[in-house]
């Protein structure tokens, strides 16, 4: 009965390991941390000075545009750029910002194989996707909404009609949100498919850049109907089409009677992108 003897002689030593029985932070806390970290990373906060240069240049340029608008308005001059025009004027800058930041948020996690670590914690896949997406969209929105607020403050205190300005500002915020959601979801989806930041940034830029001339060609060649439908295919023009439908001041885009279709595409495109993102993150690897 040597086995029994071994059992009787063996002892489990208590070397003082203890279970953690303090309060545990919730899953929501983890997701919130991921969101806050993503938002800070978008602006280079908490990173080296080099990482801060670029986002703050973009913020500086958009603010400079807003400042010029505010000054011209204060001098009593007329500007072509209202609250709702600012997102379109800055759309290229926002695209470059997203092409750099979206890979920063998701491609690095892929490259460094961090996803298994995240998902072995209470953070779920849905939490991860929504936190990263939220950080990106909010960052893009802030870049647009901040300068809009700057124009508002300058105008409202400059003695303009306060309520009218406020209404315009809210319209501007809505346009900024539209751009942020549309651009953000598409960019994050593309970035989540590439583990190299350079490839991801190039792919995002390629998708956006190719859409413009393609739409231009279709509009130049096609019939009246094609001219009214084609802008939907370009993320640059889709928000302007929706604006034309809702506010009727979209400027150069003629949506004809297809306004509701623009609205539907504007809702479906981000929804599909989020769905694809969730599907994509069911697998940890690429």
């Amino acid at each position, binding site marked *: 009965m040597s086995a029994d003897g071994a059992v009787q002689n063996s002892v489990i030593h208590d070397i003082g390991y203890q279970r953690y029985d303090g309060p545990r932070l919730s899953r929501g806390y983890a997701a919130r941390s991921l969101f806050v970290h993503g938002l800070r990373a978008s602006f280079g906060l908490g990173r080296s000075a*080099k990482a801060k240069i*670029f986002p703050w240049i973009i913020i500086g340029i958009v603010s400079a545009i807003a400042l010029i608008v505010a000054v011209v308005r204060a001098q009593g001059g007329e500007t072509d750029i209202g609250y709702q025009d600012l997102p379109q004027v800055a759309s290229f800058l926002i695209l470059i910002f997203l092409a750099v930041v979206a890979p920063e948020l998701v491609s690095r996690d892929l490259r460094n194989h961090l996803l298994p670590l995240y998902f072995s914690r209470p953070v779920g896949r849905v939490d991860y996707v929504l936190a990263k997406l939220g950080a990106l969209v909010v960052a893009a929105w802030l870049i647009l909404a901040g300068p809009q607020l700057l124009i508002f403050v300058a105008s409202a205190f400059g003695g303009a009609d306060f309520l009218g300005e406020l209404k315009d500002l809210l319209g501007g915020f809505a346009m900024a949100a539209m751009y942020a959601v549309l651009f953000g979801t598409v960019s994050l989806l593309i970035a989540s498919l590439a583990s190299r930041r350079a490839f991801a940034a190039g792919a995002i830029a390629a998708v956006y850049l190719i859409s413009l001339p*393609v739409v231009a060609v279709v509009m130049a060649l096609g019939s009246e109907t094609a001219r009214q439908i084609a802008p939907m295919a370009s993320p640059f023009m889709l928000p302007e089409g929706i604006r034309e439908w809702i506010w009727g001041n979209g400027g150069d885009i003629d949506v004809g009677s297809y306004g509701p279709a623009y609205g539907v595409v504007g809702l479906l495109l981000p929804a599909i992108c989020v769905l694809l993102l969730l599907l994509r993150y069911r697998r940890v690897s690429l």
Partner: protein
Amino acid sequence: MNATIAWITARGLFGRSRFLLLFPLPLILIGMAWLGSSLGHPEEFAFPVLGGIGIATLLPVTALIVGTAVLGSEIDDGTVVHILTKPIPRWKIVLSKLVVAFGVTTITVAVPMLIAGIVTDGWRLGLGLAAASAVGALAYSALFIALSVLTRRPVLVGLLYVMIWEGLLSNAVSGTRVLSIQQYVISLAHKWADTSLINGTVSITVAFIMSAVFTALGFCFATDRLRSFSVAGETS
């Protein structure tokens, strides 16, 4: 030129399924040229399709992705150290990278340009466009390789150059056209294809000399920077 480095670079570019990334854009170009030729006259769609999609988008974007990937991704990963510690002159390293970037970009861009040109207006236009894009591919590749040694964010700087400098400024301010590779390609295509469908704004001499200058400067700069390259990692 070092065959092993070139081979490794090419494999890094095409590894896994990354090469699939290069396919959609050329297909869109050919598709739009075909759509245009079946719907309208060459005068209407030639410049928007060949100039707007082909020269202004497909060429720089492909060159940007490929040009920054050949050297930039190796610097990112830190594997460039393995090449730098071998007894190979720096200029040979840069030359190998340049040859691969140039070759891949040319194949991805010139072939669809050739087809799109033929669909639009026949062989002459196709060949002219293909040759001009090859020159552009060389200049862009050299520029983007130099950028990937000069800065840790080559794609960012490259995008700024392509979108802001060539895209926005060159359309508004004529002075910047002299430093825009896109304008050289348009001029060269105009000259070689001998067509009025695509009209260049800079003279053919300027286009030719400046393309050579871009290529030579990019090559020398990359070589020089690689000589005193700091391998210290940074994760900003």
